[in-house]
C-alpha cells in the first residue's frame, strides 16, 4: 500500500450528503498500489524504499559532500604533485559506491508476498484451527530436517504463512524477507536475499573509498606542511574531510570485516546475532546447515548465485475480473454512499491489502457471511462472524477498515443490535472534500436511523454516522471476551534484529570542527568560539 499517513481530524458532526455513486476508474491498478507492507513506491513502482527512510539522506550527503570536497580541494594539488591517477581512481570508487548504495536502497530485498486467502485457509485447516477464536493463538511451528539439522519454521501471523528457512519478518517494513540479514537505517531498506550483494559491494567499496580519501587528504596536508611550512589554517575543508574519513573508516572497515566473515561462513547477521548455529540456544551439536564448509564456495554461493526474481511483481497489473472498478478506493467519496455487501470484501481488500478468506455469494439478497483473519495489526483487524445466518453483530464484533470509510454497508436483516458499530481506523485520506463527513481513527460509527434498533430491509442500505463521545482504544477494544491484553505484546511478532545506530554525527562533527578551530595553530590566537554558543542542546551518543 502507499505510505499511509494520516492526521487526526475531528468528525464534522453533520449529516453526510446523499449517496454518490462510485466513479468508474479507467486506470488499471498495478500490484504496488495495493501492496500491504509499509514500503513506498515511486516511478510507477520501479523504485521502492522502506516505509522509514532512516538516515539514507545523511549517508548520501556525507558521501557526496566529502567526495566533492575531495575532488575540488585536494585533487588539483595531488595531480600536480603526486600522480594523475588519483582523481580517476577516486571517481571510479565514488561511482561504484553511489550505484551500489542506490541499488541497495531502491530494490526489492526479497520480500515474500503474503499468502492468498485460499492458501491461508488451507494452512489453517492443516493446522487444525477451527477459526472461531479471534485472538492470537500460541505460536505455530513446523520442523524440517535440513542437512541433519532440525530447523523450526515459524508461522507468520501477518503474512499468513509458514516462513521458509532463513526468512524473517521485518517489523519496520511489515514484510517477510527472504534470507533476512538486517534492516539497515543507513541504507533505508532491509538487506535480504536480493540486495545483499549490493549491500556488500557498497560497504566494501565505501571502505576502499574512505581509506583512499583519508590517505590522499593526509598526504595532501603533509606535503603542504612539508613543502611550504606555512600554517594550514586555509585548508579547513581538507581538515573536515580528514575528520569525517577518520571516524568513518573504523566503523566501515569493521562492518566490512564483519560481513566478510558472514559471507565466508554463509551466515546472516540475524542468525549470527541470535546465535542460531553456534550452540547458544542450548541445543548441542548445531552447525550451520547452509554452509558448504568451504570459504570459497560460501562466498560464491552468497555473492555469485543467480539473481532471484522479485516475487512481489510490483509493476504487474491486478487481475481485473476480481476487482470491479466500482469498488476502487481511490475516489474521494463521502461517507453515506452505498456499497453492496458483496463488494465489501473487494473494497476491504483493496483498502487494506488483506484478503477476506471466503467471499460471499453474488446474490445481493442473501445474508452473507465472512470469516475472519486473525491479524492483530493496528491497521486492519477483522473479527469472526458466525457463519450461519443471520449474522448477529455484537459489541465486540466489528469491522475495522483501514481506508477512509467511503461507503455504507448493506447489512442483512436482524443484523443490528444496540451496540452494533463499525470503527474506522487509520484513515488514509486527509483531504477534506467540501464539508463531507470524514471519519477519524478510533471513532465509532453507527448506522443512521431513527433508533438504535433500526434494522434495514434485506438488501437495504445503511448509512454511517459517528457516535458522539465514543472512542476506541485500539487494539484492546477488539478483543473478544476472554482474550487478554497480554497476548498483544510485540514478542508475538517474531524476533528481528534491528541494528540501530543512533550516533549524532552532526554534533560530533561540529565539536571536532570547533576543536580544530580552537587548536592553537602556529601564529594564530585561538578564538573561544565554543564558549560563545548559547545553550547547546544535549547530545546523545549511543
Amino acid at each position, binding site marked *: 500500500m502507499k505510505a499511509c499517513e494520516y492526521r487526526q481530524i475531528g468528525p464534522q458532526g453533520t449529516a453526510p450528503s446523499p449517496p454518490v455513486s462510485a466513479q468508474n476508474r479507467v486506470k488499471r491498478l498495478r500490484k504496488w498500489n495495493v501492496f500491504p507492507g509499509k514500503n513506498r513506491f515511486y516511478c510507477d513502482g520501479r523504485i521502492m524504499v522502506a516505509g522509514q527512510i532512516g538516515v539514507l539522506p545523511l549517508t548520501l550527503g556525507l558521501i557526496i559532500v566529502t567526495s566533492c570536497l575531495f575532488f575540488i580541494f585536494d585533487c588539483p594539488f595531488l595531480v600536480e604533485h603526486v600522480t594523475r591517477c588519483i582523481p580517476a581512481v577516486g571517481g571510479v570508487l565514488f*561511482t*561504484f559506491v553511489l*550505484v*551500489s548504495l542506490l*541499488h541497495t536502497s531502491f530494490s526489492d530485498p526479497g520480500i*515474500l*508476498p503474503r*499468502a*492468498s486467502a*485460499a*492458501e491461508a485457509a*488451507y*494452512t489453517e485447516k492443516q493446522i487444525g484451527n477451527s477459526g472461531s477464536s479471534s485472538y492470537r493463538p500460541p505460536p505455530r511451528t513446523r520442523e*524440517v*530436517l*535440513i*542437512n541433519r539439522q532440525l*530447523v523450526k*519454521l515459524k508461522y507468520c501471523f501477518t503474512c499468513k*504463512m509458514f516462513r*521458509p*528457512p*532463513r526468512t524473517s519478518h521485518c517489523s519496520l517494513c511489515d514484510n517477510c524477507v*527472504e*534470507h533476512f540479514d538486517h534492516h539497515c537505517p543507513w541504507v533505508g531498506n532491509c538487506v535480504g536475499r536480493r540486495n545483499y*550483494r*549490493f549491500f556488500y*559491494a557498497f560497504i566494501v567499496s565505501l571502505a576502499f573509498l574512505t581509506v583512499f580519501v583519508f590517505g590522499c587528504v593526509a598526504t595532501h596536508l603533509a606535503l603542504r606542511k612539508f613543502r611550504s611550512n606555512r600554517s594550514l589554517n586555509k585548508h579547513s575543508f581538507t581538515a573536515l574531510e580528514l575528520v569525517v574519513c577518520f571516524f568513518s573508516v573504523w566503523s566501515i572497515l569493521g562492518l566490512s570485516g564483519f560481513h566478510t566473515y558472514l559471507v565466508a561462513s554463509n551466515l546472516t547477521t540475524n542468525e549470527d546475532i541470535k546465535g542460531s548455529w553456534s550452540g547458544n540456544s542450548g541445543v548441542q551439536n548445531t552447525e550451520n*546447515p*547452509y554452509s558448504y564448509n568451504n570459504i570459497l564456495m560460501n562466498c*560464491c*554461493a552468497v*555473492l*555469485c*548465485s*543467480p*539473481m*532471484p*526474481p522479485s*516475487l*512481489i*511483481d510490483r*509493476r*504487474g*497489473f491486478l*487481475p481485473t*475480473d*476480481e476487482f470491479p472498478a466500482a469498488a476502487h478506493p481511490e475516489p474521494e467519496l463521502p461517507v453515506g454512499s452505498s456499497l453492496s455487501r458483496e463488494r465489501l470484501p473487494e473494497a476491504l481488500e483493496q483498502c487494506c491489502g488483506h484478503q477476506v478468506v471466503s*467471499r460471499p455469494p*453474488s446474490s445481493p439478497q442473501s445474508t452473507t457471511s465472512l470469516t475472519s483473519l486473525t491479524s492483530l495489526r493496528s491497521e486492519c483487524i477483522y473479527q469472526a462472524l458466525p457463519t450461519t445466518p443471520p449474522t448477529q453483530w455484537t459489541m465486540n464484533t466489528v469491522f475495522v477498515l483501514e481506508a477512509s470509510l467511503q461507503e455504507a454497508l448493506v447489512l442483512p436483516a436482524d443484523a443490528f443490535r444496540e451496540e452494533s458499530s463499525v470503527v474506522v481506523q487509520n484513515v488514509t485520506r486527509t483531504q477534506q472534500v467540501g464539508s463531507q463527513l470524514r471519519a477519524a481513527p478510533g471513532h465509532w460509527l453507527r448506522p443512521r436511523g431513527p433508533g438504535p434498533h433500526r434494522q434495514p430491509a434485506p438488501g437495504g442500505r445503511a448509512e454511517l454516522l459517528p457516535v458522539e463521545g465514543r472512542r476506541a482504544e485500539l487494539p484492546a477494544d477488539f478483543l473478544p471476551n476472554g482474550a487478554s491484553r497480554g497476548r498483544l505484546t510485540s514478542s508475538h511478532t517474531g524476533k528481528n534484529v534491528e541494528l540501530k545506530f543512533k550516533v549524532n554525527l552532526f554534533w560530533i562533527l561540529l565539536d571536532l570542527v570547533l576543536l580544530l578551530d580552537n587548536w592553537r595553530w602556529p601564529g594564530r590566537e585561538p578564538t573561544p568560539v565554543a564558549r560563545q554558543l548559547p545553550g547547546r542542546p544535549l547530545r546523545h551518543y549511543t
Partner: protein
Amino acid sequence: MATEFHNLQELRHSASLATKVFIQRDYTEGTVCKFQAKFPAELDSRIERSLFEDTVKTLNNYYAEAEKIGGQSYLEGCLACATAYMIFLCMETRYEKVLKKISKYIQEQNEKIYAPRGLLITDPIERGMRVIEISVFEDRGSSGSSSGSSSTSSSSGR
C-alpha cells in the same frame, strides 16, 4: 468422474471452482526451490499419480537449473560486479530465462493434461514461489454464470 474440457477457455467459463490444493515446498535440501512430490489425497480421483509426479519433478528440475551455482552464474556475478550491477537493468538474468521456460511448460501441461481433467495449475511465481496451486473445477452444466471469484491461472503481466 472426470469432467471433460477441451481447452482452458471452456474450463474457465463453464466450470466452477470446487477447491484448491496447495503443494508445499520441500525444504530438506535447504532454501533451494523444490516442491514436495507427495501426491495429495484430494487429487486421487482426478489424475494419475505418475502424471502428477512427473510434472512436479520436471518443475523441480527446472528450478534446480535456474538456481544452480556453476560456471555461468560465476560469470554473471563477476560481470555484474564489474559493471556496478548496472547489467541487471539491461540484461535478462538466467533465472528469468528459466522462469519463462517454466511458464511455457506449465501452460503446456495445463492444456494437454490438466484441463481435460478439470484441473488447473497456477505458476508458483504468482504465489511467491511458495506453493503450486492446483485449482479443482467441477462442471456446473449449462446453466450458470461465470465461476467463483477465486483466482485462476492466467499469464498475468509480469
